């Protein structure tokens, strides 16, 4: 079964109103419900939310040395904020899950196909 990465992004400098504990809980509930729906449909493989880009660290090889620096690696305004890995029969099915996610989080979502490792 094809696998897809659904990734969401945060925009640097776009601060949101801080949420109360109660608001946070309220926002989180439908997202958890969707995850449960993905699991019962057999689509969910993994999902995670990431900390701010400030917390990322880059490790790279420079000559013979391995150098560790403050991250992230990609100098961009948008940064990876979270992702799902799902299994779907085809792109349309993956897009179906992506539209459910984007409706909940009200920000765009990228759908990336995995390279099939099983000889596909």
């Amino acid at each position, binding site marked *: 079964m*094809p696998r897809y990465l659904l990734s969401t992004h945060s925009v640097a400098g776009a601060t949101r109103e801080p949420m109360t504990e109660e608001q946070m809980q309220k926002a989180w509930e439908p997202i958890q419900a969707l995850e449960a729906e993905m699991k019962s449909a057999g689509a969910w493989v993994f999902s995670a939310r990431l900390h701010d880009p400030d917390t990322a660290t880059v490790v790279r090889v420079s000559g013979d040395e391995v150098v560790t620096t403050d991250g992230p690696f990609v100098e961009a305004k948008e940064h990876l904020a979270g992702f799902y890995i799902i299994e*779907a*029969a*085809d*792109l*349309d099915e993956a*897009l179906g899950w992506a539209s459910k996610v984007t409706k909940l989080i009200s920000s765009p979502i990228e*759908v990336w*196909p995995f*390279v099939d490792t099983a*000889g596909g």
Partner: protein
Amino acid sequence: MPIVDDALIGRIFRAESGRSVATLIRIFGDIDLAEDAVQEAFALALRQWPADGLPPNPGGWITTTARHRAIDHLRRESRGRELLDQVAEVADEPTGEEAERVQDDRLRLIFTCCHPALSIEARIALTLRLLGGLTTAQVARAFLVAEPTMAKRLVRAKHKIKAAHIPYRVPSEAELPERLRPVLAVLYLTYNAGTDGPSGDELRVEAIRLARAINSLMPDEGEVAGLLALLLLTESRWPARFTSDGALVLLRDQDRSSWDRALIEEGHAIVRACLRRNRPGPYQIQAAISAVHADAKTFEATDWSQILDLYDQLLALTPTPVVAMNRAIALGEIQGPQAALDVLDGLDLGEYHLFHAARADLLRRLGRHDDARRAYALAAPLAVSDAERVFLGDRLETELEAGRHRGRPA
């Protein structure tokens, strides 16, 4: 008995290859394999048919021959042999059920080619290449890009279909409206691309042929019928659109006796069926507008109030500046050029050559020749086609002439 030459074989392939490619993609699940196999069948036909005569069912011959070729290819590679085991053997002569699936195959393929995950350029190129049977060189020529550029575009698009697993199926009822829109847009853009450029005839014929095919496959979709009618009615005026030396002739000045009556009849019948169905959409309304024009014996006899009504409906459905402009032009035919000009001056269409051309024409009719000249001068460099550029340049000349007659410096 027709002479079986390369031109005839080419025409047959153009008409039949989309069906064959679509069927082979269903059987083998591989676009490149299907394309190559049909291409080989074409090469074989060019060698065999002139000597042996046409097979009784050329379309069936192409599909069967291409299928055998594809199987030969697969046998030669180990991965292919695995795939062959999975592929169900299909009968050579299509049974009733098989024939129905062949119809469905083309429909499946056009939804794959026009999938919203592909760029618009890629959608058009794939549709013309795979369903229209145009060569990469022909598609490249139609869009005025170099052949290697077009080849790369096609390779990338086919890679995305494969890598992202863009499905090969007719969308469900719920998805259909959203997914049909890009399909119709591709056909419309293809036709429009065919109103200009070196391979224009090919593109217009192809757009109409595919619109006919989709209409016969989805007879209940009003907008498909509407698009087909719009294309037929637009095409009916084609012979009158240019003078013998290629200059553009406006609707107002066209020789209506050279309009193609058969196409008008066909377009009218579809528009009437759409009216009975009463589920209007943008293509159906544009077709209805075209039908009103086709009804008028002379430009002066045009039923402008009916056209204005239809533009009101169209503007409500698609409130774009271009529709507002065309509605204003119809209004101008009823209330005079000043009424139209008042509306036009409120529209933000400065980059659109037809906007300046329309303004110029209204200004000319109002006797404001200096302003008309300025508007023609703005329109000409923005024009897309040579014929339009020449036309607008000529009009500019005429206005300069009019200026001189009034004794003013041009």
